[in-house]
């Protein structure tokens, strides 16, 4: 993979002496991770710890008639065999709804199923033993009698009257519906010279983390305290939920999250088996550990993206887009996932479709239905890849229809860079975006004209290459508008506490968490820059609800933008405190002093006056020498939450260059480009890694990843051989470029960057494939993943009726 350095210039307002902002500082956790000294929950052991394994339903939908546990209870090493009914005595069920998603409904979900199993893989009994192996041995001895019930598999028929209702008390299988009309779509379609209509399908897939979900719960009866080591993205959210459902107060619960082997949104939800593990610890009064294995991961880690979108665009011959319309349908499994709900992805699709463009005429409907498959919920770039692929697919189909270059088509319709503040067709608000500058940057970076010439030349030789684009927007830095206003106890604000230690180093506690993406590095860079010490003198502490400030954690690309700003403000506050102390020692005025490179210096001239270790020595050990009445305060805490805008939208554009083998239907990814604007770039290398990793996951959706279910709700490919994660050998070089439009909501100006790659890549790849096949008269491909079979069908090489 070629790495192109396209780092933006350092932003001047942040350019304090020795600033680390805008520099590719190596992550401070690199050595720990590469030397195998990271602290993953999977590796932890505690005295008296036992392991839990779960008996899981082989049926998509079945009544649990009886569970015979006697044989398992007698098996070697077994501590306890616990059914759902028994566990329900220590943990209450939950319902995944939010009040701001009007009308959303779901049924109570239990930590272990009691009466019915509602998807293949749902836990129906727990076996706790000395080792995981013994627990698995005993699981084979648990005899469950099931009465199979008809399974609801296909979302298309989930709402029909003949289809069984999964939760009869809810009345129907509709979880959530949203309808939106903006502008005048009817007039828009009337004004169009051409209307293009098609249906997009997005394959159900999942986020495959290196380290599976892992949790170790330790209820200490003597202390009245629950300590949970968990690989999660949101320790404080989990603290709240454990307390709530185990009838504890939050101060009785400590959640510890050190290193997490990848999350991608998978680890920000409540999982029944994890709740069961915590409840088992309370019940059995000893540490209980659960680490999902791969087979369990595929049937229990949330899935995402199973959407069918009927879509329509109106366009004039001059390229003006006149109207949009979408009808989205998605099946989310038998329960709306707690506490973020499974309505958010569909809601985002309604919010984001058409988002980069000026055309306001928009009609949208989204329906979310229950079905008997594994649950779906928020995975990296929630809704974005779908909204982007639908929008950008429509734009390129329209461009082809009227014979306009796809970049020209975008230039005529993207919101102008000087038109902000502005809003999208759904009413979402944009502070400042840079679609046109990004497009121009991409055009130059990829040598678009040169590529088109190459494409033409090769076509003459029977080689079919395609170029596809996707302009996109990304929701980052969410305010309380995302979850808080809907009643979920998920913090939108985050804090950093900074302390000068007794040797003048900086100890930084932050509410955001590290899951491999480099949050520790970003917080350290900002802290060092803001306060004024070398980065080596900053220690960042994350993931401990006992000691870190209350915060949301890491999701929705919020760690750098929100956690980073809190660190920036805390650094300034602590600097002021330290300078007050220095001023009293030096008998100077604080405003004449500064902190640079670990020492108090004269603001003008930079002469060193007092090293920080000396200041700390005096403040901590010889406070008697300070002027009477002066108290040094060498700790400062600051919090931050975006207030001016509900979200800090970012934007960008991607391009994909592919070659399609028309004999085999195989797609070769040649190159990929992404220009994105995340505002202030704190660490270019980390941003680029986020973009590249995100693009790879987006490519996974476009070409490879698919949870394939049969009509009875059975997952057919739940293993690493049959579920195809994108791998390095198939990936193209991914070049990343930047445009910088800082948000004015924070001093740092950083927006998020974690999901941009995933948001745009599937649409870009889809458009590139269709561009390649257009001269062959192929039917446009709109069903992901684009397998060789589907491409051969589009080419007419195999008949359309045969399965692919």
């Amino acid at each position: 993979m070629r790495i192109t350095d396209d780092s933006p210039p350092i932003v001047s307002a942040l350019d304090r002496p020795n600033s680390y902002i805008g520099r590719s500082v190596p992550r401070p956790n690199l050595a720990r991770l590469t030397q195998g000294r990271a602290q993953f929950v999977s590796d932890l052991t505690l005295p008296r710890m036992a392991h839990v394994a779960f008996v899981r339903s082989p049926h998509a939908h079945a009544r649990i008639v009886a569970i015979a546990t006697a044989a398992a209870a007698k098996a070697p090493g077994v501590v306890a065999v616990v059914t759902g009914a028994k566990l329900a005595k220590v943990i209450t069920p939950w319902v995944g709804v939010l009040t701001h998603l009007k009308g959303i409904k779901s049924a109570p979900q239990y930590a272990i199923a009691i009466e019915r199993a509602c998807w293949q893989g749902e836990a129906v009994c727990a076996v706790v033993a000395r080792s995981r192996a013994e627990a698995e041995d005993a699981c084979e001895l648990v005899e469950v009698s099931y009465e199979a019930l008809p399974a609801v598999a296909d979302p298309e028929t989930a709402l029909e009257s003949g289809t069984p209702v999964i939760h009869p008390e809810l009345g129907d299988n509709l979880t959530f519906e949203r309808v939106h009309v903006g502008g005048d779509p009817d007039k828009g379609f009337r004004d169009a010279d051409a209307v293009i209509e098609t249906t997009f399908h997005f394959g159900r897939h999942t986020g495959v983390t290196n380290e599976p979900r892992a949790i170790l719960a330790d209820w200490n009866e003597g202390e009245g305290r629950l300590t949970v080591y968990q690989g999660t993205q949101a320790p404080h959210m989990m603290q709240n939920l454990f307390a709530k459902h185990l009838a504890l107060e939050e101060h009785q619960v400590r959640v510890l999250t050190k290193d997490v082997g990848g999350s991608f949104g998978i680890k920000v939800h409540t999982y029944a088996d994890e709740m069961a593990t915590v409840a088992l610890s309370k019940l059995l009064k000893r540490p209980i550990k659960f680490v999902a294995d791969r087979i369990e991961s595929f049937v229990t880690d949330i899935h995402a993206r199973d959407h069918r979108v009927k879509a329509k665009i109106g366009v004039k011959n001059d390229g003006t887009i006149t109207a949009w319309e979408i009808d989205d349908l998605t099946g989310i499994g038998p329960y709306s996932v707690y506490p973020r709900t499974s309505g958010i992805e569909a809601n985002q699709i309604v919010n984001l479709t058409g988002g980069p463009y000026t055309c306001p005429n928009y009609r949208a409907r989204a329906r979310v239905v229950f079905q008997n498959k594994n649950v779906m919920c928020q995975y990296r770039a929630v809704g974005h890849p779908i909204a982007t692929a639908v929008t950008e697919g429509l734009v390129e189909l329209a461009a082809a229809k009227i014979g306009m270059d796809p970049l020209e088509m975008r230039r005529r319709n993207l919101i102008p860079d000087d038109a902000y503040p502005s809003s999208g067709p759904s009413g979402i608000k944009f502070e400042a975006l840079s679609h046109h500058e990004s497009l121009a940057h991409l055009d130059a970076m990829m040598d678009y004209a040169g590529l088109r010439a190459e494409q033409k030349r090769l076509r003459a030789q029977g080689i079919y290459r395609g170029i596809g684009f996707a302009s996109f927007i990304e929701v980052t830095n969410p305010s309380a508008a995302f979850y808080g206003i809907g009643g979920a106890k998920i913090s939108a604000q985050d804090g950093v506490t900074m302390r000068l230690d007794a040797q003048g180093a900086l100890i930084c506690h932050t509410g955001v968490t590290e899951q491999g993406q480099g949050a520790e590095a970003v917080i350290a860079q900002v802290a060092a820059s803001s306060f004024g010490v070398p980065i080596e003198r900053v220690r960042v502490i994350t993931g401990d609800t006992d000691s870190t400030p209350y915060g949301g954690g890491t999701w929705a690309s919020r760690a750098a933008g929100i956690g980073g700003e809190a660190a920036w403000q805390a650094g300034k506050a602590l600097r002021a405190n330290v300078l007050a102390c220095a001023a009293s020692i030096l008998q100077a005025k604080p405003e004449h002093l500064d902190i640079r490179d670990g020492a108090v210096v004269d603001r003008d001239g930079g002469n060193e006056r007092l090293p920080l270790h000396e200041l700390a020595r005096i403040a901590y050990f010889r406070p008697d020498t300070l002027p009477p009445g002066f108290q040094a305060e060498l700790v400062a805490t600051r919090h931050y939450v975006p207030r001016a805008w509900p979200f800090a939208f970012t934007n960008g554009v991607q391009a994909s260059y592919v070659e399609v083998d028309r004999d085999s239907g195989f797609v070769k990814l040649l190159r990929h480009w992404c220009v994105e604007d995340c505002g202030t770039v704190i660490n270019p290398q980390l941003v680029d890694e986020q973009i590249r990793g995100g693009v790879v996951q987006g490519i996974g959706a476009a070409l490879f990843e698919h949870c394939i279910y049969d009509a009875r709700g059975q997952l057919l490919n739940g293993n690493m051989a049959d579920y195809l994660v994108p791998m390095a050998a198939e990936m193209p070089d991914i070049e990343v470029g930047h445009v910088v439009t800082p948000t004015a909501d924070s001093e740092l100006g950083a927006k998020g960057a974690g999901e941009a790659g995933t948001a745009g890549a599937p649409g870009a790849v889809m458009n590139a494939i269709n561009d390649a096949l257009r001269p062959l008269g192929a039917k446009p491909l709109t069903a992901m993943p684009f397998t060789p079979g589907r491409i051969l069908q589009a080419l007419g090489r195999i008949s359309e009726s045969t399965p692919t």
Partner: protein
Amino acid sequence: MKPAPFAYAKARSVAAAIELLASNDARLLAGGQSLIATLNMRLSQPALLVDINGIAGLDRIALTNAHIEIGTLVRYAQAERSPEIARAAPLIALALPHIGHTAIRNRGTLGGSLAFADPAAELPACMIALGAEIEIVGPQGQRAVKADEFFKDLFETALTARDVLTAIRVPVASGATRVGFAEFARRHGDYAMVGLAACAQADGTRLNDLRLAYFGVGATPVRARKAEAALAEGDVEAGVSALAGDLDPPDDVQASGAVKTHLAGVLLRRVARQLGRAAS
């Protein structure tokens, strides 16, 4: 994903291994690249694993005038580096890079691949294309089975539960030998969706003893005999058409039978070129 409990024994000779196999529900352990996964997924639960990795001499590659003999424990990686295999069995050399990834090729054995007999594996098809012989030692002594008769059904071979596969014997390639190999896999290192191993003896413009062995299209590798006849005559397109009669691949999660049959034709054109036959 923990295996059910099992006992473990390390055999120091083929005879000892056979003795251990006779005693109870035992399974041989070679490279472990297939066996350990099936144990972890509890797809099989043998009472005893008999480790043959310590048996001296089973990892030899020996070349005579007529044959190259490859010991069962020869690892893929070792075979990839072997000049003898490159020269005397170039079809195997062509196929090896398609098997799994480096880590798997470092451990996986050629004999293990044949004994396991995955229908989408590369080497079983190569053995059929090459007309190889499989050496087996059992309680009754030694025997050799032709590759054509070795692969019986899905994961079923001529090996009984008491047998040890000891070596593979492949005829040495001559100047007239032509080989071809191609496969379609979604990702590098995956088992093939469909693949083709081919071998023939060139005689002027004729291809004698042409063998086309497809994999990933049925329970075992499949000889495409009608296509062989057409291609031997030099008619590539007739060969492609004949595949409809030769192959009847079942649908799987990666591709439908129809897609596989189509791809088999694409492979035939590619392999025909490698054999010196231009597609019309």
